[in-house]
């Protein structure tokens, strides 16, 4: 069932807005509606127990609800099977899982890994560690003046037959929407295994992993209305089947004998130890919430608010917006103000209860590439409204008055 998209109605589901904040940091972490916190609270208060073990009723209910999230996520991203949906703590753990379990098996000395300069640190550092360990090489695709990936350079690198290509669907720092379908197709044609970092894609653009055609897709629940501590790794079944476990211990085994162990089936092979049960149930409620709104409506609302903000910010003298025009960007606007450091702007905005990110956004190579130490960043989601953008503009004017 698709609800009508009405921001005022949506905001009523988010008690945090009663505090009066203007929240412009959803690319960092989103807010969570009552439906999500309620589902988690219901678990704690009505059927709190461990999964996959006990024979009593509430433990069965916990197991069913925990596993139900898998099907919801499968449907959301159109994976072929729930066996391809692995719970992780978030995008970072999902990428580390691939770097460890797939990478250590398949990356060898002299192999090429292709990344891009706009990646979040979580899609750089695990590969750097792997490359150093294996003696592999990493090449980075640069951006052009508009903050878009240099496709000519990307295709040039593909000619060198990289073993792995990993890039973000959407840049967290610039908001650039990458031509992911075309890039995956080209990388696959070149024989590479492809990981797409969907941390900024899944919550906003949505994804159809089969249409995208990637081998791995990683994202976090906490950027899409869910709690922290629950994220997803999607992996093509045959790849996951052939991979060794990442973490090992309880719950990921079939039988353990002193002579050796047989591992559990997919996806539990990758889910060792007691899981983040409440968080996974909360993520399920978040997926329900987004599915009811429809990703198309989510996208269209974000486009509208981003265009409004882009116009409003571009009108301010001494303000530079980084990245592509609004038609080619997600709900993220990174900018700088002449003579005012982003931290100072964020401090002044905070006094007006405007939550604004200032810093390198875990994308230091990109900041270096742009020639800045840090930027201010406003980012939006389903509950963002024009009034919050207006309040940001007010804070910017106040900062300019103080620093004039």
């Amino acid at each position, binding site marked *: 069932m698709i609800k009508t998209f009405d921001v005022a109605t949506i905001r009523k589901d988010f008690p945090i807005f009663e505090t009066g904040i203007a929240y412009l940091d959803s690319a960092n972490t989103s807010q969570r509606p009552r439906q999500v916190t309620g589902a988690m609270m219901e678990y704690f208060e009505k059927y709190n127990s461990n999964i996959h073990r006990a024979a009593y009723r509430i433990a069965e209910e916990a197991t069913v609800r925990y596993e139900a999230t898998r099907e919801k996520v499968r449907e959301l991203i159109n994976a072929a099977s729930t066996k391809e949906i692995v719970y992780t703590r978030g995008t970072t753990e999902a990428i580390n899982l691939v770097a460890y379990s797939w990478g250590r098996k398949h990356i060898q000395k002299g192999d090429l890994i292709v990344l891009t300069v706009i990646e979040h640190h979580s899609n750089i550092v695990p590969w750097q560690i792997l490359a150093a360990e294996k003696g592999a090489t990493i090449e980075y695709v640069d951006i052009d003046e508009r903050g878009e990936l240099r496709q000519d350079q990307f295709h040039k690198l593909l000619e060198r037959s990289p073993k792995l290509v990993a890039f973000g669907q959407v840049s967290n720092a610039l908001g650039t929407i990458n031509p992911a379908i075309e890039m995956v197709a080209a990388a696959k044609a070149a024989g590479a295994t492809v990981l797409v970092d969907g941390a900024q894609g899944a919550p906003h653009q949505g994804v159809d992993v089969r249409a995208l055609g990637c081998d791995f897709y990683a994202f976090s629940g906490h950027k899409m209305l869910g709690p922290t501590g629950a994220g997803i790794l999607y992996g093509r079944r045959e790849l996951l089947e052939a991979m060794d476990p990442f973490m090992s211990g309880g719950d990921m085994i079939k039988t353990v004998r002193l002579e050796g162990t047989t591992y559990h089936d997919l996806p539990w092979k990758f889910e060792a130890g007691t899981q983040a049960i409440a968080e996974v149930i909360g993520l399920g409620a978040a997926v329900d919430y987004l599915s009811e709104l429809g990703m198309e409506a989510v996208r269209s609302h974000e486009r509208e608010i981003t265009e409004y903000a882009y116009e409003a910010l571009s009108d301010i003298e001494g303000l530079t917006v980084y990245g592509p025009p609004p038609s080619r960007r997600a709900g993220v606007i990174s900018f700088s103000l002449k003579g005012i*450091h982003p931290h*100072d702007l964020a401090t002044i905005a905070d006094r007006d209860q405007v939550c604004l990110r200032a*810093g*390198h956004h875990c994308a230091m190579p990109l900041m270096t590439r742009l020639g800045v130490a*840090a930027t201010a960043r406003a980012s939006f989601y389903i509950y963002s409204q024009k009034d919050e953008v207006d309040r940001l503009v007010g804070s910017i004017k106040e900062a300019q008055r103080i620093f004039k």
Partner: protein
Amino acid sequence: MSTAADDQFYREYILDHYKNPRNFGRLENPDISHEEDNPLCGDVIGMDFRVKDGVIEDIRFHGRGCAISQASASLLTERLKGLPLEQAKKIGKADVLGELGIEISPARIKCALLSLKVLKVGAYGLAAGEEDEE
């Protein structure tokens, strides 16, 4: 609405030190030169010292950052110039924060103390990180 002059955080002297930093630049052939960055935001401050007979004869700082880190560095260099190195080593967090004279939130404390870190690690010869245990 407050005026810039009576802003409790961005006080006039802070903004003055930010816009017109004292002892800003580089020294040729410094006796001590050290740079530190704030890993949270990528801001950088470096200091060059000329030391003669145990006294900081001249000092310059360089780098980029917010009003708090820049003003803090500017104020610190004013205090350090002409000071015996041994006394400079004794300057602590409370001194630097006191000099700034504003309420610093936990989110901004690293900005305020970045220049002190440069002094400690550079002049004291500490390994990076040790000054946190002070």
